[in-house]
């Protein structure tokens, strides 16, 4: 079976090389058969990749420890589900997953556009072929899942790290890969547009859904990782500004900027160069993110041993930047804007500021990540940055971004007069200011950044609410009908705008959750003998004894903490430690979430007294409103779905616009 898999992988490489070359030739000669052949090659590459995937899964399920990926990441006692998902626990296996998503997405994108974008598609195939060739080459020759284990074949494997035996860790890598890989599609279209000189907005519309999918997947992947960190890694937080977390954040920021910036190009024919730069940045950062995760070049909790794949990935990123920059400069004359920016008080300007701030934030994060490497190269000693650095820039760039989220949708195009500004922003500003005063009175003034953030959240919420309310009212004035009917109509007719507003609401919820749980949380550490109590923010916790129980492949030692609030009992928390049969130790925190407020009571067992007296060291946190962070993820997905939903009216308009041209040229 592994022989079959190996051959399949070489076949993928050959097919992707062919697809790239065929794409170039099809582009230069206008040969439709070559184009069809290139498209077929991607389908064949997908099939061959899947054969390789099945081979590896087969080896995993049959415990074939002659393969390194099986020996190093599974064991005989590992539950089947985790055995299957350990495909992406190993480096080579995850590369295979990347390749599968890439060939699949490429085949799908080419298939979707088989009757459209005729001039672009051969070059799209060429670029995608190039990207796929690179990753297929890595998987086939540099880091193969079929590599033999070094030395003798072990009887049993090393097993999967207990902290990875968790549903979130099963879902998190595929979700992130979906995000990283699908960014190739918009990038390929952008390059094809530059190569063919077809810099009209057609490619933008075609890639809109792919960009949304990529962006939504990256966002969801990050939240899944954050949730895993919160419940499994267990330090009480959910985001550590770890380089690997940042690796996903940077392309997401660039993609966010791109998603917004294309609106301006479609409506006003401006920011064309920006859009080319942003999509190239998003793709480059996605591959760079993969490099960060694999290469071990930056110290991180996720840091892996120096992988052979690292230098190649870095070289690929450099090549991508070089090629895209060259293409953009070559086509600069075609990317001239149709209109000028006439006023900084306009919607066009807010989009421009949006781009600038998002890029600045991405750059700040990037700098924080590469700074240790650079400082070591320059001074010989590594200097690292940690949370305070990132928090500083998050606040200083994030708060204006939050403000823009509210200002942008309401401000007029071209030039907003003072009159219209007063009219549209009166209620949001008044609400935000009075909200700020109220919050300050409630004692939330302890954190200036926190108070500002929350006030801006009120501002944005009111603007979104007004948009929905006024839009519905206008719809009813035009077409009558009930309020729900008008609302559904409104959203249906303008999915992008109102889906976007839902996403903005998700961001607001996220900001509230993050602000509350970081700026206003309480932490207490204590040593408790049996019967002793500690008080954390109104909760009283009493040590009710240390116990043990057996699990399927571990022994769990825990302390029972009886919780009470205001005198009445509030359940128990049982944080503890799992000692696995393999000898590994896993700390298991216990969290009590309060549903209405989303506040968590978070308990960590730090140590059990050796004298077996039942005394323990614990750390307890109260994280207000942290549940909102997870709720934000759900709303975020809902908004993305609304925006993704196909709009038949728009499809008809596009067909009309581009169809009439083709009819005229007699094709």
């Amino acid at each position, binding site marked *: 079976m592994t022989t079959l898999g190996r051959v399949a992988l070489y076949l993928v490489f050959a097919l992707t090389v062919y697809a790239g070359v065929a794409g170039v030739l099809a582009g230069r000669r206008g040969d439709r058969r070559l184009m069809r052949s290139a498209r077929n090659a991607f389908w064949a590459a997908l099939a061959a990749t899947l054969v390789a995937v099945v081979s590896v899964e087969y080896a995993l399920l049959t415990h074939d420890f002659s393969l390194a990926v099986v020996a190093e990441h599974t064991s005989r006692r590992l539950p089947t589900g985790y055995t299957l998902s350990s495909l992406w626990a190993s480096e080579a296996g995850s590369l295979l997953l990347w390749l599968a998503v890439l060939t699949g997405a490429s085949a799908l994108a080419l298939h979707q556009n088989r009757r459209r974008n005729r001039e672009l598609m051969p070059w799209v195939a060429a670029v995608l072929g190039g990207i796929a060739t690179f990753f297929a080459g890595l998987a086939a020759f540099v880091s193969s899942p079929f590599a033999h284990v070094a030395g003798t074949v072990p009887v049993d494997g090393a097993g999967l790290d207990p902290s990875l035996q968790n549903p979130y860790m099963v879902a998190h890598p595929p979700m992130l890969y979906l995000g990283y890989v699908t960014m190739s599609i918009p990038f390929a279209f952008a390059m094809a547009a530059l190569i063919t000189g077809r810099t009209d907005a057609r490619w933008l519309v075609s890639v809109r859904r792919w960009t949304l999918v990529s962006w939504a997947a990256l966002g969801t992947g990050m939240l899944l990782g954050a949730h895993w960190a919160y419940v499994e890694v267990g330090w009480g937080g959910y985001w550590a500004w770890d380089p690997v977390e940042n690796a996903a954040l940077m392309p997401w920021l660039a993609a966010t900027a791109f998603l917004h910036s294309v609106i301006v190009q479609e409506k006003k024919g401006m920011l064309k160069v920006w859009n080319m730069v942003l999509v190239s940045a998003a793709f480059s950062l996605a591959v760079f993110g993969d490099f960060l995760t694999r290469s071990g070049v930056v110290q991180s909790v996720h*840091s892996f*041993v120096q992988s052979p794949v690292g230098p190649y990935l870095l070289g690929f990123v450099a090549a991508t930047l070089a090629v895209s920059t060259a293409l953009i400069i070559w086509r600069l004359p075609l990317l001239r804007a149709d209109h000028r920016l006439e006023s900084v008080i306009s919607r066009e300007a807010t989009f421009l500021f949006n781009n600038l701030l998002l890029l600045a934030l991405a750059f700040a994060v990037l700098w924080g990540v590469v700074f240790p490497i650079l400082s070591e190269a320059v001074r010989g000693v590594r200097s690292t940055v940690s949370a305070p650095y990132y928090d500083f820039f998050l606040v200083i760039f994030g708060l204006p971004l939050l403000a823009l989220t509210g200002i942008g949708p309401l401000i007029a195009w071209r030039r907003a007069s003072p009159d219209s500004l007063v009219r549209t922003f009166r209620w949001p500003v008044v609400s935000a200011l009075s909200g700020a005063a109220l919050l300050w009175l409630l004692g939330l003034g302890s954190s200036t950044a926190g108070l500002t953030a929350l006030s801006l959240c009120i501002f944005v919420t009111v603007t979104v609410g007004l948009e929905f309310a006024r839009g519905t009212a206008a719809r009813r004035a035009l077409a009558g009908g009930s309020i729900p009917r008008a609302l559904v109509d409104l959203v249906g007719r303008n999915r992008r705008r109102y889906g976007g507003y839902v996403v903005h609401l998700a961001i607001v919820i996220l900001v509230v959750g993050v602000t509350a749980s970081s700026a206003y949380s309480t932490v207490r550490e204590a040593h408790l003998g049996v019967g002793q109590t500690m008080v954390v923010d109104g909760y009283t916790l009493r040590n009710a004894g240390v116990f043990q129980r057996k699990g399927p492949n571990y022994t769990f030692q825990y302390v029972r903490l009886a919780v009470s609030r205001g005198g009445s009992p509030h359940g128990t928390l049982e944080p503890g430690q799992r000692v696995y049969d393999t000898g590994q130790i896993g700390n298991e925190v216990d969290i009590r979430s309060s549903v209405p407020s989303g506040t968590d009571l978070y308990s960590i067992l730090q140590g059990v007294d050796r004298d077996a007296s039942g005394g323990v060291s614990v750390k307890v946190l109260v994280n207000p409103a942290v549940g909102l962070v997870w709720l934000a993820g759900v709303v975020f997905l809902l908004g993305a779905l609304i925006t993704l939903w196909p709009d038949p009216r728009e499809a008809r308009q596009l067909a009309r616009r581009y169809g009439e041209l083709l009819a005229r040229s007699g094709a």
Partner: protein
Amino acid sequence: MTGRPRLVIALVVASLLAVFLVYQGFVSTGTLLVSVSQLNSDRDGAAHKKVNLTGVVVTASGTDSPLRFVLKDDATRATVPVAYTGSVPDAFKPTRHVIVTGRMQDGVFVGEPDSLLTKCPSKYSSGGSG
């Protein structure tokens, strides 16, 4: 664009850049990451300030508080005793690579609470020992 919008945009870009400079100049220049041998040889004054120390765990005292363990340099034989309080990551044990933040005090490296990190050993490593 011409005239005033261009000026405003330029000012905005300039202030964004200024933010970076202000931060680097006044707020922080980052914490040094040193190996055990760099710490022992007082490279860059590492023995006198707060640093991130990295090394391999040699021996560890179990679940006491403060946790006491000995850290060895990755390459040389240099070692340093460490005293640490706070949460201990799951993967912590002898032979693991760890990073801990703190400073030297009287010959012992005192770690700041909750600053102990281990490198995730099983993911993407080319050997079980990570």
